[in-house]
């Protein structure tokens, strides 16, 4: 090792600044603050144990978000929902509406952020997570692909559908001129 610092210290140096992001993402996954805290805690524990396998020089954020997601997938919340659609794409669900709404309605004021939040809540989970990883966490497509264990092409198409769905969900909130 290049330094005398322990693996635990090095892990914490990388992980602790990401705690707000991990917690926020966990809240979106489980929709419950107590469960989100448990999920992040378990993610840290697993991440620490697996830190030997982390490839230095690669994106730690993508790595720890992947652990978060895999931990979530084996949680009781995800298992309870696994009989539904979480891992699957359902393109038919959102591609029936006008594919080209005009985007002016997206000049969003701060007091309208609640509507954006509600739209995110209504988004199917598999679309919500891809848009959060890309737009909020600003992961690159290849990193999102690694987190979700998907080909990049699927990430791109899923992201496009997520954005289209957001536009459709937001249209009623921002008037009929869209």
């Amino acid at each position: 090792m290049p330094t005398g610092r322990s693996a635990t210290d090095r892990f914490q140096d990388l992980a602790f600044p990401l705690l707000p992001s991990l917690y926020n993402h966990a809240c979106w996954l489980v929709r419950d603050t107590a469960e989100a805290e448990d999920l992040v805690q378990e993610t840290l524990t697993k991440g620490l144990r697996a830190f030997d396998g982390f490839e230095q020089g690669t994106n730690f954020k993508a790595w720890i978000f992947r652990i978060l997601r895999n931990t979530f997938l084996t949680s009781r919340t995800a298992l309870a929902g696994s009989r539904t659609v979480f891992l699957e794409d359902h393109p038919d669900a959102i591609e029936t509406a006008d594919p080209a709404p005009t985007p002016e309605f997206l000049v969003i004021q701060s007091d309208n952020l609640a509507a954006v939040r509600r739209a995110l809540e209504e988004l199917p989970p598999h679309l919500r997570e891809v848009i959060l990883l890309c737009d909020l966490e600003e992961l690159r497509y290849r990193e999102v692909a690694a987190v979700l264990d998907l080909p990049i092409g699927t990430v791109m198409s899923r992201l496009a559908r997520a954005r289209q769905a957001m536009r459709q969900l937001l249209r009623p909130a921002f008037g009929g001129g869209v």
Partner: protein
Amino acid sequence: MSSDHLSLESLGALVDGELSPANEAAAQAHLNQCHDCAKQAFGLHQLRSAIQRAALCNKPSPEVLARLTAGSRPAEVPRSRLAHLRAIALPLAAALILAAAALGGWTFLRHADTAATEALDQHLSTLSEAAQPEVLSSDRHTVKPWFEGKLPFSFNLPEPAALPPDTILHGADLAYVQAKPAALLLFTMRKHHVSVFVSQASGLTGLPHRQSSSGFQFVEAQHSGLEFLAVGDVSSGELDALVRSLTAVQ
């Protein structure tokens, strides 16, 4: 949308900065000519910005942050050579758990059962052929001292003769259950693999003494400030006998 327009995927990739320089230049040239696509790109940019502001809505309180940072400072994490093997074993465990759920057998995972979930997860990990315990020994005089300095507690192991019939200690490892460091003792009982997690009793697991799920039995007991959680696919009576042989020597 006409086929002359950029697709939503391409517009998204442009906004996300994911296009190659050549494709980006071509897309920009198209936007200069196409008002509709320029509007779409502008809208995507605004949507991205709005999502960034709207989605960051779950800020951890200082108390939550304090608990999270404190909880990730165990006494010492094993720099186990198994770390990369677990990377293989854990997805296997996850797949098994998901398969069990798909078969409809996953009914016990209720509020207080995260400890059992974690224990089963780690037990399944030990079943992988790639998994090797950190300590490969049936000698209690080897296994017990190995934990010294690694756990914030001590415990005793019974003589081989004091274990239930056809029960052999094969090794041990460090584990974490409910974010607590635990000794993971690996036994076989009539060729069935059994994991026993020994940790400091906290009363937090909320587990009943016995329960079962998906063909696995769980037995929990507390003794002398220690908590014993055994998981395996033997009968609960056999697990109970193993746990009693452990509590008897504390």
